[in-house]
């Protein structure tokens, strides 16, 4: 062994090199405060190791980037750990870099003769921030896509060359395959190479001047090996432990595949850029423009930092004091702005709702990709585009939620608000003016229609058309309108309530409800076939017990029990709404297109007619399939039921709002 080392030594000088590297003097003894530079080098090595691994499985294109990252994280052996390490170590590197920089300034280690090394350090910092920024886009998920859009748009605000810089970064006028290939080349090739080069210079110059020691007499001098290396490696081990634990127990999020057509309201930069994000939101900053807030101000700050060695040289101790004060003020500002951003987001209902939707979409994309059919060649983005579970709620919120609610919310989990009475008044929770369509067509819904009709449709009474009609009626006019409190259906329910609730009819009601629910054909529920048949008899023949006997649904709704026609028309329409496969996919599609047809509500209709101009066939299909459970079943955590919250806020905020009583 010794012979081999000697052989190598005479040819390479390796021993001298190791001696040089490890026996560096540490005046005043090894100290914990010297570990930060080493932890940074270690984190960079960790990023190289995990980065090369991710590279071996990553595929940069708009149709494969998200897919390959999904594959790494959810399919490959230890893929979640490798991605997690890379994800968290990247953030760790930014934190360690901030600590390192602050320490260098506070300790005066930037002053002569170490000015050049300080500037090298600032270049390294820029490279690391560039790595963070380019890496954030690579998974090509909604989060990275929209956050990076903001960054490249900020670039375009650079005076004179902005647009060119942006086009160069993106590889074209818009985001696409080339954006990813270019960002990837920057992230995995150009920037790391630059980083290695500058790091070598940084360490070389550092070794030339040695540590910045305040108190050389604190303890006897020692050498880098093993005393300082021990402390350094303990610190590195701590860094490793933290990122490894985070990777194991808090897997990095992969949000839904990037889709320029789907808004992403939860867009935020990585948390360490939040201070800048928050700074740009100040009204005063906003009014001065993006160029000022995002380019000029950060530019000035970087300029001041870079000029610190000169400041200290020119102004002496005063300069150093000013530099330190500036650093502390800056750090304080960053911390305060970051906390403000977190606090405001946590208390921002809309942002929280957007986050919930982002998590729901992301988990759904992963759920669909994990399916037996894997991911189509067109990319995982098409899985979501064609998914009713993802787009149904959005379409409901867009088209239906101004009148209807879905379990009390707008389909996307948020309460619907309207402007306050005056310009200054805060917005208030809006009262629904049509039925709540959560659970549309299920057993509960059908039970409510049979037993509790007036109450079930009570929301309608908040509408203007209802109030107008009532006022007109009160004034002695004749109006033909849908009145939940007074109609043939309401009268049948309320008039026969005792009979319906009688013990003799308990099984009959159950059977009728089973039949009506089964007629919807909604997926995800199994029905009792015998009960359904019994219910069919009741609906068509009216074989009830007691006073109800002989009253059948079919005596008014004559198409009940029949199939909903493929080419529906009004040739056989009675004056009652058709219940042929009521609430089924076919019925609902026809109803949304033609609520005013004689087969539905005819002249009494108050619902907006959704022609294909208003709601395309594709979107109608997505909406209706969502409402009828016609999609790949999901275990993703869905929006919370807000009905009771809605009722409570309406009861406390406004008077005279009609709402169904009791629980659903």
């Amino acid at each position, binding site marked *: 062994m010794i012979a081999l080392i000697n052989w190598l030594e005479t040819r390479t000088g390796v021993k001298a090199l190791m001696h040089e590297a490890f026996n560096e003097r540490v005046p005043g003894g090894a100290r914990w405060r010297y570990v930060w530079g080493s932890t940074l080098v270690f984190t960079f090595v960790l990023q190289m190791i995990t980065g090369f691994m991710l590279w071996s499985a990553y595929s940069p294109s708009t149709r494969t980037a998200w897919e390959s990252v999904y594959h790494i994280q959810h399919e490959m*052996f230890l893929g979640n750990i490798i991605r997690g390490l890379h994800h968290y170590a990247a953030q760790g590197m930014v934190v360690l870099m901030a600590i390192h920089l602050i320490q260098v300034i506070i300790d005066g280690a930037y002053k002569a003769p170490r000015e050049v090394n300080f500037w090298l350090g600032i270049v390294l910092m820029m490279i690391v921030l560039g790595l963070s920024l380019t890496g954030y886009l690579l998974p090509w998920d909604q989060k990275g896509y929209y956050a990076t859009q903001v960054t490249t748009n900020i670039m375009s605000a650079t005076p004179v060359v902005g647009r060119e810089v942006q086009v160069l970064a993106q590889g074209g006028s818009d985001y696409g395959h080339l954006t990813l290939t270019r960002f990837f080349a920057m992230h995995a090739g150009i920037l790391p190479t630059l980083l290695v080069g500058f790091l070598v210079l940084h360490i070389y110059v550092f070794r030339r001047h040695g540590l910045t020691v305040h108190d050389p007499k604190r303890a006897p001098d020692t050498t880098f090996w093993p005393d300082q290396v021990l402390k350094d490696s303990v610190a590195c081990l701590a860094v490793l432990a933290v990122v490894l634990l985070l990777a194991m127990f808090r897997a990095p999020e992969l949000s839904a595949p990037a889709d320029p057509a789907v808004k992403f309201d939860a867009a935020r930069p990585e948390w360490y850029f939040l201070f800048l994000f928050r700074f740009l939101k100040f009204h005063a900053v906003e009014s001065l423009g993006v160029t000022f807030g995002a380019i000029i101000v950060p530019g000035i700050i970087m300029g001041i930092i870079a000029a610190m060695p000169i400041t200290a040289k020119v102004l002496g101790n005063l300069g150093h004091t000013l530099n330190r004060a500036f650093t502390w003020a800056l750090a304080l500002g960053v911390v305060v702005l970051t906390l403000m951003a977190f606090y405001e987001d946590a208390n921002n209902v809309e942002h929280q709702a957007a986050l919930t939707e982002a998590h729901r979409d992301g988990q759904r994309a992963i759920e669909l990709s994990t399916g037996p059919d894997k991911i189509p060649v067109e990319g995982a983005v098409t899985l979501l585009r064609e998914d009713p579970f993802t787009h149904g709620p959005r379409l409901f919120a867009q088209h239906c939620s101004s009148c209807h609610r879905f379990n009390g919310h707008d389909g996307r989990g948020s309460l619907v608000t309207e402007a306050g009475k005056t310009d200054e008044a805060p917005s208030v929770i809006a009262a629904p003016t049509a039925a709540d369509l959560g659970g549309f067509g299920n057993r509960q819904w059908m039970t409510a229609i049979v037993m509790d009709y007036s109450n079930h449709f009570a929301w309608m009474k908040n509408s203007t058309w209802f109030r107008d009609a009532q006022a007109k009626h009160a004034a002695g006019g004749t109006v033909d309108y849908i009145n939940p409190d007074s109609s043939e259906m309401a009268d049948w329910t309320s008039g026969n309530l005792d009979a319906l609730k009688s013990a003799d009819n308990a099984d009959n009601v159950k059977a009728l409800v089973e039949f009506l629910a089964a007629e919807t054909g909604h997926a995800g529920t199994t029905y009792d076939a015998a009960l359904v048949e019994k219910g069919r008899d009741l609906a068509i023949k009216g074989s009830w017990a007691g006073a109800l006997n002989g009253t059948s649904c079919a005596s008014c709704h004559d198409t009940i029990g029949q199939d909903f026609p493929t080419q529906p028309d009004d040739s056989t329409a009675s004056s009652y709404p058709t219940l042929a496969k009521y609430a089924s996919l076919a019925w609902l599609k026809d109803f949304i297109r033609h609520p005013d047809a004689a087969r539905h509500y005819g002249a009494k209709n108050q619902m907006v007619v959704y022609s294909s101009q208003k709601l395309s066939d594709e979107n109608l299909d997505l909406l209706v399939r969502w409402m009828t459970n016609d999609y790949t079943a999901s275990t993703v955590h869905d929006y919370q039921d807000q009905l009771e919250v809605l009722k409570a806020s309406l009861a406390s905020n406004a008077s005279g709002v009609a709402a169904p009583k009791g629980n659903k």
Partner: protein
Amino acid sequence: MTSTSPEIPAAGSVDLPISVETPRRSLLVQLITGMLSFLIIAVPSTLSGLFFLDPILRKRKAVSDDTADGEVPRKDEAGFIRLDVTKEAVPQDGTPLSVTVNDDLVDAWNMFRDVPVGSIWLRKVGDGPILAFNSICPHLGCSVDYIREENEFYCPCHASAFALDGKKMNDIPPRDLDVLEVSMRTHGQQDANGHEIWVKFQNFQRATSDKIVI
């Protein structure tokens, strides 16, 4: 702040004998330091190494079938795939016929339905059974051609030659052409007189004398 003043010489410019001033380090400290330094690199390296071994370490999931209800699946559970050609298409005179085999192909995160996954040679002599060969050369994986003039299979890469019954004709290939199992069927059911040709399409390890399924 004296330490940061320009008067402090660059390290190395003064050649102090460090060993004199350095307290003696116990072997234990050196050992612990060495182990810790090793650990911080070994842990991520080991995890990375295991990640890189994913193609060997990970169990593949079963692939779903998208056959419509009532249709005979294109592939059965034993792995036999129905070819697009029927018995009639194979020349009676023993001339080999090249046929593309289609199957569902899983490629990492993608699934391609019913795409070409390989090609085979089919051959029949008179009313005898149909023979199927994988057209991949068992030497180093090029595609074997049929040379009409020589009436043999020939690989253009390294000149492997095979007789029409698949037997190797020179010492270049390590083994004969790979014969694939064939099953004649009617509506997917075994039937010696059936017209459907079902082949158990497999690829085999190249460059070995043994026929090992990949």
